[in-house]
């Protein structure tokens, strides 16, 4: 069965992230993001290859994804001579450093979306286990998108006969901007005003000196979660996890001697997809809400979680998230310098960001891919803009995965250990 390719437009957040990468120039930081899926056996390469080949005709990247010309040049697939070059499928043996070592190398091996396909798939196996790694240039899709892509490939493998109807239609069409132009414009202006209000000055950098932006260091920890559903539900909420991250951030803050009277901003990415399906596979369907966190000096995480929940509720009441999204969407029509007018300090590239994301259960509907059991997995992001640091949660089966990642010398291993320790205590988890 062949379905027509569908166009998926670049969205505002994509444009901003692409521009930030491009502004960094050649030899820039890797914008790679990684989905690492740990497997109970070796993947049959030919089945992955076959599914990838069958998926490509449906893939909107080749048709319309990057159709709008961008001021900083054509991305790889928009150059006619390069045509629809498929994403490469690589095979490698898993070295003694296992999946973490492979993830490190995938992060460091920068995909350049202007010169090569912005996605590659790696199958790996060896004495240290087996894994499937999806690596993509970050703005092309978000973590949910990568899971959806993998699910689509696995679904195709489940239905190898083209005559068999595909079990679910590909949901690849981006929703258009809702509402009248004038209304969207007013919302976008409000979004810009929020940014000015929240971040009139550059956030303080945790880096001791101008850092090397090219490196991203991830540290992965595994935990078991509480079996008590009510506690688990409460601690799975965004406000609680945000409070935990804020507490960890405060610990690092104090380690640097920056004082507890300095509030800091944590960008919270809120998934705008409708619930119950992952939505379009490509693009960042995330609205950014900047939570202004006071340092929780008294250590009362529950109180901070209540404050952050009230803050988020107020943002919902005032339509702030929608305004932030509309502001981002207008980045498609405005030159990047418009953004720098709102945040003048961003133009220097001299800023530090601290990120938080909770991507929830990994592949909840599947226990295997390509006939091989899934035994774990997690997301790793390169935390743009840089220098930056981030804490990312992914639940896979009965395991909670926490990845602390940073660029340059923003954090070090001792910081990562401290952050992981705080997360473990506040979430009432036990190490695996």
């Amino acid at each position, binding site marked *: 069965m062949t379905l027509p390719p569908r166009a998926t437009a670049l969205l505002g957040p994509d444009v901003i992230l692409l521009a930030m990468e491009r502004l960094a120039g050649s030899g820039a930081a890797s914008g790679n993001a990684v989905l690492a899926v740990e497997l109970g056996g070796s993947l049959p390469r030919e089945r992955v290859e076959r599914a990838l080949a069958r998926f490509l005709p449906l893939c909107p990247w080749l048709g319309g994804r990057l159709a709008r010309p961008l001021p900083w040049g054509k991305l790889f697939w928009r150059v006619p001579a390069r045509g629809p070059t498929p994403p490469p499928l690589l095979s490698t043996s898993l070295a003694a450093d296992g999946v973490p070592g492979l993830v490190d190398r995938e992060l460091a091996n920068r995909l350049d979306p202007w010169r090569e396909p912005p996605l590659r798939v790696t199958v790996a196996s060896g004495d240290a286990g087996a894994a499937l790694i999806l690596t993509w240039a970050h703005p092309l899709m978000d973590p949910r998108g990568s899971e959806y892509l993998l699910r689509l490939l696995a679904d195709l493998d489940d239905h190898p006969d083209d005559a068999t109807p595909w079990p679910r239609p590909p949901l690849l069409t981006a929703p258009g901007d809702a509402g009248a132009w004038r209304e969207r414009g007013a919302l976008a202006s409000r979004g810009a005003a929020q940014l000015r209000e929240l971040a009139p000055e550059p956030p303080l950098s945790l880096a001791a000196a101008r850092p090397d932006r090219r490196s991203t260091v991830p540290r992965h920890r595994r935990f078991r979660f509480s079996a008590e*559903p*009510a506690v688990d*539900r409460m601690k*799975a*909420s*965004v*406000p609680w996890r945000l409070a935990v991250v804020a507490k960890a951030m405060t610990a690092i803050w104090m380690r640097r001697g920056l004082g507890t009277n300095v509030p800091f901003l944590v960008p919270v990415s*809120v*998934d705008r*997809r*409708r*619930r*119950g*399906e992952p*939505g379009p596979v490509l693009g960042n369907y995330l609205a950014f809400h900047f939570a202004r966190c006071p340092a929780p000096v008294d250590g009362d995480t529950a109180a901070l979680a*209540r404050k952050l*929940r009230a803050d*988020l*509720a107020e943002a*919902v*009441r005032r339509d702030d998230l929608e305004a932030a999204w509309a502001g981002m969407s207008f980045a498609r029509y405005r030159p990047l310098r418009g953004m720098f007018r709102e945040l003048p300090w961003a133009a220097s590239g001299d800023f530090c960001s601290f990120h938080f994301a909770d991507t*929830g259960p990994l592949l909840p509907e599947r226990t295997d891919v390509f006939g091989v059991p899934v035994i774990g997995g997690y997301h790793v992001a390169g935390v743009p803009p840089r220098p930056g640091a981030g804490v990312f949660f992914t639940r896979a089966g009965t395991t909670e995965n926490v990845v602390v990642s940073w660029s340059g010398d923003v954090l070090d291993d001792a910081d990562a250990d401290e952050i992981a320790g705080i997360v473990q205590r506040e979430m009432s988890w036990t190490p695996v």
Partner: protein
Amino acid sequence: MAPAPVDAVTAAIVRFLNAQIMAETNPVAADDELAAAGVDSMALLKVLVFLEREYGIWVPDEELTDDVIRSARTLAAYVTGARPA
């Protein structure tokens, strides 16, 4: 103002959920478990703000128990049994 009947509030919550939160292919019914349907903490906040706007009731943190937020109907029961702030 007389409290709204549970069934009417339940129907209003279901309408809001299916119009604003849920995917078209994944609608919820009155007694479906919201968490199992994918209603996470951010989506729940939107529902709570809807209840506040429509019925003048804000569910405080300490009353956000599993019994209250289990389904559209249990939320409606809370709303019709509580007093506006």
